[in-house]
């Protein structure tokens, strides 16, 4: 048994896999672990030196798919990829297709990784830093996010497109990225200071968004199941609107379900507009 560690880095894994493949080493005799002692039955055998005699040819698309699937954090993370590579290199292309048992697992991982990148784009919430602090730290926006897979590096460019010359950072429990308006600075180990800035940012203007969220909800159409389906619970902790949800659901269940209006609006005094008032100047309305 050959026990390997690639540090969860795709380029390292690719070099190891190429070497293994060249020597015709069967997937059943290799294991990748975080620490080398992960697999108790593995009696370490050294990786043979040199490139080996076997010249494998695989479709270019496979490499991109392996890289994407390699961002998935889970069981057999790197072993699975080597098995796919092995089978395709030996002429069985179904191993990379969704119809095959192995291929379907790889495709599922690719989908999960894509989904998690989309979650990053959707659910990251930046907090604007006050002007003095922004000047001091050279940073306009900070965010803290907990992705389930290693997608920050490949997916964070999206925010450079969105935010122009704004300077921002995203901290996670593992990695982090900072943008200075020109360049992305990705760190596999997020500096603790970044994490502190992101987790402790004060946000005096948070109320506007919460007010919007509360009023955009239509209690007559209450459907918390659909909410849970689209918005995984693990993100609610970091979304400012998360704590509002039980309250809004509760209100809707207790009688607010008759019509769509928010409670706060119903409590205010209304204003009917006289008919035929085409000359009315709305600027003169007492709003």
């Amino acid at each position, binding site marked *: 048994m050959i026990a390997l560690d690639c540090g969860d880095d795709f380029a390292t894994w690719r070099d190891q896999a190429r070497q293994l493949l060249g020597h015709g080493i069967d997937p059943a005799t290799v294991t990748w672990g975080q620490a080398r002692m992960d697999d108790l039955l593995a009696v370490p055998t050294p990786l043979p030196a040199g490139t080996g005699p076997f010249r494998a040819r695989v479709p270019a698309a496979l490499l991109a798919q392996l890289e994407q699937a390699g961002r998935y954090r889970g069981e057999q993370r790197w072993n699975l990829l080597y098995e796919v590579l092995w089978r395709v290199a030996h002429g069985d292309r179904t191993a990379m297709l969704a119809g095959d048992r192995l291929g379907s697992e790889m495709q599922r991982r690719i989908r999960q990784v894509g989904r998690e990148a989309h979650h990053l784009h959707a659910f990251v919430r930046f907090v604007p830093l006050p002007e003095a602090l922004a000047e001091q730290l050279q940073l306009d926006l900070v965010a803290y996010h907990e992705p389930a897979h290693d997608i920050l590096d490949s997916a964070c460019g999206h925010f450079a497109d969105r935010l122009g010359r704004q300077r921002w950072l995203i901290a996670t429990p593992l990695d982090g990225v900072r943008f200075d308006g020109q360049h992305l600075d990705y760190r596999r180990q997020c500096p603790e200071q970044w994490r502190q800035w992101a987790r402790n940012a004060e946000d005096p203007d948070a109320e506007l968004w919460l007010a919007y969220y509360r009023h955009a909800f239509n209690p007559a159409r209450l459907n918390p199941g659909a909410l849970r389906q689209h918005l995984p619970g693990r993100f609610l902790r970091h979304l400012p609107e998360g704590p509002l949800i039980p309250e809004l659901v509760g209100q809707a269940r207790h009688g607010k379900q*008759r019509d769509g209006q928010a409670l706060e609006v119903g409590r205010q005094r209304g204003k009917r507009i006289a*008919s035929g008032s085409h000359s009315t100047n709305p600027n003169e309305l007492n709003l």
Partner: protein
Amino acid sequence: MQLIAKLGILADAAKYDASCASSGAPKRSSRGRDGLGATDGMGICHSYTPDGRCVSLLKVLLTNFCLYDCQYCVNRRSSNVPRARFSPEEVVRLTLDFYRRNCISGLFLSSGIIRSADYTMEQLIRVASLLREEHGFRGYIHLKTIPDADPLLIEEAGRLADRLSVNIELPTDASLERLAPEKRASTIRQAMSVIHHGQQAVAGEPRAPRFTPAGQSTQVIVGADATDDSALLRNAESLYQGYGLRRVYYSAFSPIPDSPSSVPLAAPPLLREHRLYQADFLLRGYGYKAGELLGETGNLALDIDPKLAWALANREVFPLDVNRAEPALLARIPGIGLRSVQRLVALRRERRIRYDDLIQLRCVLDKARPFIVTSDYRPAQAELRSGLLRARLREPQAPVQMGLWG
């Protein structure tokens, strides 16, 4: 009035419009440039409210002051709701603030009719041009179009916005006359055709300035009048064909506070709205015709989805051999979606498809089983009558409590 109080009133007033899509815009980026915002064609749902609807855009009215008296609308002039009005600068400030926080991907702005259709349209355009021209905003903008506005104004809006929409609201002239006396079906369609012509003028000309690149959409209210699904879907079909509409949204009539007696007090089942969306998707994505989905009947079945209903009514087409059938026909098998069709076609180039492959592809086999043949499977139920199959496949319906007053 404070900004936050206005935001409450004007977000509450805008929630009855179902559309919140931010997809279909061309690729734009602000990387390394002044300004803010990007689009790449994919929509992003930044949050979901407890009604299960996606929050993608800041959806507000510029004002809920309105001269019209549409009976189904919470903002009609005779409605007793609190009123407010944003200045264009206030909407800009909110849009940019929420966008920077990554709470939204853009703005969906609509308005009650104030002074005149033209004046109202000018105000909406003012917000869009402040965003685009003064603040270099490259995010998504959807503007509601006021049907009676000057075509030149609609064209100006089309050059600023990614999407324009004109709401049909009620699908028949008679219903419009009864429930929305200030609106005319003819001017609504005229506005749609102004937008459609604007799109055609730049189609195939990559250098021409963009015109509503994410297309136009509309909304129909379901259940505020007696119109049946057949009329709604045929109407949608004619809009897709005649005006190149990107989407028709169906909004189940939502009871409003202080409701007039001309509209129902209770909402139609949300399931009806859901079935309409399913049928509409079959029109747009699968090549079904409205007439096929609704033969003689006026309404879609609630207990089974429209694709299954079509399959049960056309048993002579089935069972289909998954290894041989044309992709367009594969897509008509209940439980097999467009993505599965693509995968099946890719897989059958490599080898014969077996029943187990359909499980791997996560097809809904409970639905598909009676309608397919694979290299190792033939349905035993192929001879089963449609009525029996339907009884087996129908979705359980929530029990309805008996009304206290019968």
